[in-house]
């Protein structure tokens, strides 16, 4: 019994750390290879407080968590700020992990490499389990909140995330801090369970275990790392003799999973009715292995190796299959029942919330935490007497190549302007310069009266310029609804604590509002029926529309569309033209459109500018452009003349 307790407690402790790493690596997409260091910080801080200063467990754990967060911020700020690609970042975390171990080994306070023995055993199966449940609940809430969505967006596509106004650094640091806090909690509990810690415990091996748990469990999921970490703790216990081979297995598993099933066990999905049988299968395999192992050990001396093995294998297999069927049966049983249960729960919960309305709503309103209301579709408050966007002498070069050469362009409010030109003429570069993705070499871009030079892309986006990309950049593992909802993050005003506990009186009304607004936007592009579909599974034309809906979520004054009709057949192009026209009529949005489909451009745009070799060679109405010999020459490559029409 004590043995089972030990396995259980250890699992719970490591699962807490794994949940933290799942948030950082699994969702934000950054690889922390030294995460055990944060566990070490939490462990040592809490242990020192209880051992030397006789603090009770709870405050010690909390201070340990805070210490881990602070260390993570100190380390994270320079490394995240440098916007390192994943390799560099991973190496930096490796270095940090090692460095911390050295510091711990040499600090008097931590008693160096000898470690701290004799810590009080304040952590046991019950409170560890409680902390684990709490940790999972908080993670789950966090991921469903605005903060969580922003972090998931960064993990999916940092460029697109910036283009909807999500600043990378603060959000990545939030993700790191949160994950470090959980690791610190895990470390503190570990220290008070095994009662003796030394720096060698928090080694690369431990970091590898956590990483393997997240990767094999599946990135973008909490269920996956939970299951995988549990397995990684439990299974080796069943095969005590395997001890060192356990880690060999971890390593091999990582290789196998990356090559065969990079998604892992539960990649980008959480536990639901359809994958419940999978969970039972995994549990069944584990139980089967356990039973098989004990049967083998019990009977092998009497019956010999081969028959015992056969019996063990049969029993193990039988248990596995039985569990699998049990899982399927349960899923089928729950299918009609679950919606009813869920509805009942929600009714009850709403009732309680309403009871509290009288108390909490005035209080939260008074505290200024109430929703201030969605800015809503603004009337275009831009001045109509000067251009909305004014580009003068814009220049950009890459290496020796001049991509944009002294381009001037004025776009007036409410216009739809086309930007056309042969391949490589600099059109997308103009967009990238305007939205702040590339720094400008020389020239000015003035938007709504203010110069854009030097502003980071997120400021420009939040200032009213929104864009789509030539190669669609959606958050493909998120649902259609969430893609749009993430872009509405500026309208979300509840705080971090409220997000952690999903405070019903601030979070729920705000989330409802965001959902309604997101559905409205989906309605504009005709995608409401697809709200719960995973964005990556949508057909190409609909993905385009989703990208436009997401761009609209930011209430832009200016919308930049980069080849929206790319890859579309004539029918889809027509739909797109209609859509853009509808949006324009409703909102009087100003639009600049890069396109190669001439039918789209000529039909939609009131003015067209033509670029060639980075220079603007013509500007005018569609008719003027179509008959401009310079334009024809640029496209077709030959001098053209017109015959007088008889």
């Amino acid at each position, binding site marked *: 019994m004590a043995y089972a307790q030990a396995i259980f407690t250890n699992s719970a402790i490591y699962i807490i750390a794994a949940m933290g790493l799942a948030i950082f690596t699994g969702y934000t997409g950054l690889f922390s290879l030294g995460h055990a260091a944060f566990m070490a910080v939490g462990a040592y801080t809490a242990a020192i407080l209880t051992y030397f200063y006789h603090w009770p467990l709870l405050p010690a754990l909390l201070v340990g968590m805070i210490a881990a967060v602070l260390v993570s911020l100190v380390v994270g700020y320079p490394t995240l700020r440098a916007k390192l690609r994943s390799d560099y970042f991973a190496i930096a975390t490796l270095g940090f992990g090692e460095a911390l171990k050295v510091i711990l080994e040499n600090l008097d306070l931590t008693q160096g490499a000898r470690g701290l023995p004799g810590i009080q055993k304040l952590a046991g199966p019950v409170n560890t389990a409680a902390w684990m449940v709490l940790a999972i609940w908080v993670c789950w809430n966090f991921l469903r909140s605005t903060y969580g969505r922003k972090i998931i967006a960064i993990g999916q596509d940092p460029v697109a995330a910036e283009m909807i106004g999500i600043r990378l650094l603060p959000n990545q640091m939030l993700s790191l801090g949160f994950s470090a806090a959980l690791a610190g909690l895990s470390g503190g509990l570990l220290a008070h369970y095994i009662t003796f810690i030394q720096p060698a415990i928090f080694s690369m091996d431990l970091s590898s275990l956590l990483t393997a748990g997240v*990767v094999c469990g599946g990135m973008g999921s909490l269920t996956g790392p939970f299951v995988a970490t549990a397995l990684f703790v439990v299974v080796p216990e069943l095969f005590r003799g395997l001890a060192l081979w356990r880690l060999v297995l971890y*390593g091999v598993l990582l290789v196998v999973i990356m090559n065969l099933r990079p998604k892992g066990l539960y990649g980008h999905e959480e536990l639901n009715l359809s994958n419940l049988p999978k969970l039972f299968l995994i549990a069944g395999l584990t139980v089967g292995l356990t039973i098989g192992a004990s049967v083998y050990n019990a009977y092998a001396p009497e019956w010999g190796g081969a028959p015992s093995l056969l019996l063990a294998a049969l029993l193990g297999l039988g248990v596995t299959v039985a569990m699998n069927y049990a899982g399927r049966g349960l899923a089928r049983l729950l299918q009609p029942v679950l919606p009813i249960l869920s509805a009942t729960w929600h009714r009850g919960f709403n009732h309680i919330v309403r009871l509290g309305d009288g108390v909490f709503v005035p209080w939260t309103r008074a505290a200024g935490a109430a929703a201030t209301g969605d800015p809503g579709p603004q009337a275009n408050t831009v001045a109509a007497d000067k251009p909305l966007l004014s580009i003068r002498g814009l220049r950009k070069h890459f290496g020796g190549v001049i991509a944009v050469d002294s381009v001037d362009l004025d776009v007036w409010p409410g216009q739809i302007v086309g930007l056309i030109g042969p391949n490589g003429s600099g059109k997308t570069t103009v967009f990238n310069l305007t939205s702040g993705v590339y720094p400008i070499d020389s020239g000015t871009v003035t938007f709504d009266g203010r110069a854009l030079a030097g502003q980071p892309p997120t400021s420009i986006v939040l200032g009213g310029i929104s864009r789509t990309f*030539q190669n669609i950049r959606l958050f493909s593992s998120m649902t259609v609804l969430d893609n749009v909802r993430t872009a509405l993050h500026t309208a979300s005003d509840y705080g971090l604590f409220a997000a952690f506990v999903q405070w019903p009186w601030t979070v729920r009304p705000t989330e409802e509002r965001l959902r309604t607004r997101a559905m409205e936007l989906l309605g504009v592009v005709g995608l409401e029926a697809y709200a719960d579909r995973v964005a990556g599974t949508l057909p190409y034309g609909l993905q385009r529309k989703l990208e436009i809906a997401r761009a609209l979520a930011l209430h832009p004054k200016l919308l930049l569309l980069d080849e929206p009709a790319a890859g579309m057949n004539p029918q889809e192009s027509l739909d797109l033209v209609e859509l853009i026209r509808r949006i324009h009529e409703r909102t009087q949005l100003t639009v600049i459109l890069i396109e190669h489909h001439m039918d789209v451009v000529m039909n939609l745009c009131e003015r067209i500018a033509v670029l060639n070799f980075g220079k603007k060679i013509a500007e005018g109405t569609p008719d003027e452009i179509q008959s401009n010999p310079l334009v024809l020459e640029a496209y077709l490559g030959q001098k053209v003349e017109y015959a007088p029409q008889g």
Partner: protein
Amino acid sequence: MILQTIITGLSIGSIYALMAVGYSLVFSVLNFSNFAHGAIITLGAYIAWAIMVQFLRLPFLPALLLSILGAGILAFLNERIAYSTLRRRRAPSLYLMISAMGVAIALQNLLYATIGAKLYALPPVFAQDAFEVGGATISRMDLFAFVFSVVAIGLLHFGLMYTKVGTAIRAASHDMEMVSVLGVNLDVLVAVLFLIAGGLGGMAGVFMGVKYMVYPSMGWITNKAYIGAVIGGLGSLPGAIVGGMLLGLLEALVSVTTIGSVQLSTYRDVFSFGILAILLIVRPTGLFGRLVEEKL
């Protein structure tokens, strides 16, 4: 005193440089961090141990050459098993990195599980006498290692510059796809790449084993090599050499410095990480690294 420090620094620095070059070579072509490089280095040392001590009693030079060959072959097999499928599928470099980590963990612990954690010493190669130069001493082994490393890297340079395969490798570091379109068999090219990287790693492992000891977690020394490669600029071979040497020199300097009563040498590893962190803030591409701009 300063001369001794420099010599110490260069001797360990040349080993770091060897490690960093193998690592950077793979990075420059395949654009991912081969975290399994450390394991190959360790295995190189173990092969030497097996040949010199455990199973045969061969002298140093044949053992060294066999270790180089063995490590190269192991690196080649590593690529085949853990990376080639991902490479053909054009998987993101993150997957390759994780797969590499898996190999590193598996191999290191395989050593623990089979041979055990015991530290082994390789028999002394040269007589223990050393040279005296201007008040400082250089051991024969260190000199040998330094010269051998220089020659090896020189041969690598020659191969890269003047052979067809070498030119193809240099081209592949810029545009691997285009190289295949010109008729180069990428499978063969990558195999050669890993043979070379592994060979260099094996060499470094043997020198490490002779200089210090042979034990399963030797591979983590390669963290220093990674740091050296990053300092020099990932993907740049001169950068790897300079970065490795520089790190060696800096470490040697730190080891002999005492600030107040604090002997900095115990914090050597912290120092290495600190250098890395500062460099990454100031110049993320390293000293010679390329800035690869993502096409938007």
